[in-house]
């Protein structure tokens, strides 16, 4: 439906990129495996462990209880463990998905063209480099958004089951709302823009995906900081961080769009 608003060439390039990414075994397996691991496998394992471990054998119970907000002070240790996981650890896992999917799709879309020698052919069409850049970015963002949405739906089911089993209130909070509506889209665009810049230096798809590892580091540090008790990440914090990332998106996007010039691309 969204494709109907696009021009014929834009739609063609987006459809072609979708097929190409799906046809690439490496990209497809990365997108499916990593998403399944992060939103289903890991939460399920945590849930099984929490449900089946006797309360008195859960390590660091005091520390966990201290991390709870005032509204959750009446939770028992199992509830507290799952609550902390859902609100502190799983957001990090979840945000890895838009970051990973946008990096992988952008690597396929941008570096793939360069690798296969098809970029020059695209630049010979009436589409201007900026339009081509825009269409490719839109395609990567759309595909990542779909993957992120499906992943969140799967995650929501797993977490809701955990909430029911542990008699916890529904996990969805203001923080998750900001994560879904702002943080994840901002991170998606960041992943694409970063990969566009990285694609200029990368000779192959694999090399480009490896480079994308660098962009995950700030995300991990952010959540490690919370775990270490350096700061608390709530809805307001996510809102501020999202705003910073959106600003970064605009700056990096501008740089990436300017670097997407015919002569530079064909060097």
């Amino acid at each position: 439906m969204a494709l109907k608003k696009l021009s014929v060439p834009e739609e063609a390039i987006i459809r072609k990129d979708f097929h190409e990414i799906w046809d690439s075994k490496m990209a497809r397996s990365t997108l499916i495996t990593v998403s399944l691991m992060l939103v289903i496998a890991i939460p399920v394992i945590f849930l099984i462990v929490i449900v089946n471990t006797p309360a008195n054998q859960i390590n660091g119970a005091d520390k966990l209880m201290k991390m709870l907000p005032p509204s959750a002070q009446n939770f028992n240790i199992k509830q507290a463990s799952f609550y902390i996981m859902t609100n502190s650890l799983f957001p990090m896992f979840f945000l890895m998905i838009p970051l990973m999917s946008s990096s992988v799709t952008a690597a396929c879309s941008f570096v793939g063209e360069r690798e296969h020698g098809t970029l020059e052919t695209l630049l010979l069409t009436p589409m201007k480099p900026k339009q081509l850049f825009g269409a490719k970015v839109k395609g990567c963002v759309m595909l990542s958004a779909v993957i992120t949405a499906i992943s969140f739906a799967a995650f929501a089911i797993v977490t809701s089951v955990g909430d029911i089993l542990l008699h916890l209130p529904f996990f969805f909070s203001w923080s998750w709302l900001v994560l879904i509506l702002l943080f994840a889209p901002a991170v998606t665009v960041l992943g694409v823009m970063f990969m566009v810049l990285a694609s200029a230096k990368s000779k192959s798809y694999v090399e480009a995906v490896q480079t994308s590892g660098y962009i995950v580091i700030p995300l991990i540090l952010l959540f490690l900081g919370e775990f270490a008790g350096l700061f608390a990440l709530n809805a307001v914090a996510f809102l501020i961080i999202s705003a910073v990332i959106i600003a970064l998106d605009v700056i990096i996007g501008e740089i990436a769009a300017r670097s997407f010039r015919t002569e530079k691309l064909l060097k």
Partner: protein
Amino acid sequence: MGEPAIHADRLSKTYNGTVTALRGLSLDVAQGEVFGFLGPNGAGKTTTVKLLNGLLKPSSGSCSVMGLQPLIHSSEVHKMCGVMTESAKMYGNMTGMENLEFFARMYGVEPGKAKARAESLLKCMDLWDVRGRELHTYSTGMAQRLSLARALINDPKVLLLDEPTNGLDPESANAVNSMIASLACKEGVTVFLCTHQLRYAQDICRRYGIIEKGTLLACGDLETLARNAQFCPKAAVRLPDGEQLENFERGNDGWWRADIKEDDDMPRLLKKFVEEGHHVYEARIVRPSIEDIYFRYVQINRGEEWH
């Protein structure tokens, strides 16, 4: 003469400020003309094509295609041009049909029309039977023909072809040449054909440019080029063994040859031979081929002595 389809004025390109690929190229190609741009690898042919379609920015000078500057009006120029270069590849994981349909849509052609156009080109290029095969399974000849089909997908007014017959067997090369010639003849498409395969060029080109090391050595039709290179037509005569002709040289093939100034010299010579009692089996005027002319210009440019 109307506006040229292709115009270059002192066009130069230097890469990284050090390597000069093209020096002050000036030429005009008329609409509907098939122009052969001849030169060895690295002469500057591909650079010229890339400058003409706006993929490269000139270091100095200017160029235009159908009156439009490619750098400023890139979209419009690309809409009018079909470009085939060795480095502009198609998608190996897509079939021939999918590739053509995709590129048709990149030119804004609606899906239904894109399919019809792709089908007609596949039939025309004798690729209909392999339309459903992925491109990576195509032979070099098939892939070249598909590239030519891609260059024609937008019904171009100007075709910029860089070595379209490279790597093709003689049969495929002839097929591609016939296609190019027919496009120019029937549809009035202007063709700028870069090649180092001189014999193929002579079959279809009306005018030529000879380029070496980025410098245009000569430009014109075969006759002009031959005259400027001080090539004369030769009278060639075959006589029975034992007979000799004064001022003629005998070649290894048994033919006697001598330079003549113009075609009108030939009947006079033949009359003289008959009057002298020679038995003339065969006689013809031998003109220089584009290959002879090309090598003459290259040798003159290199300062070598011509024998």
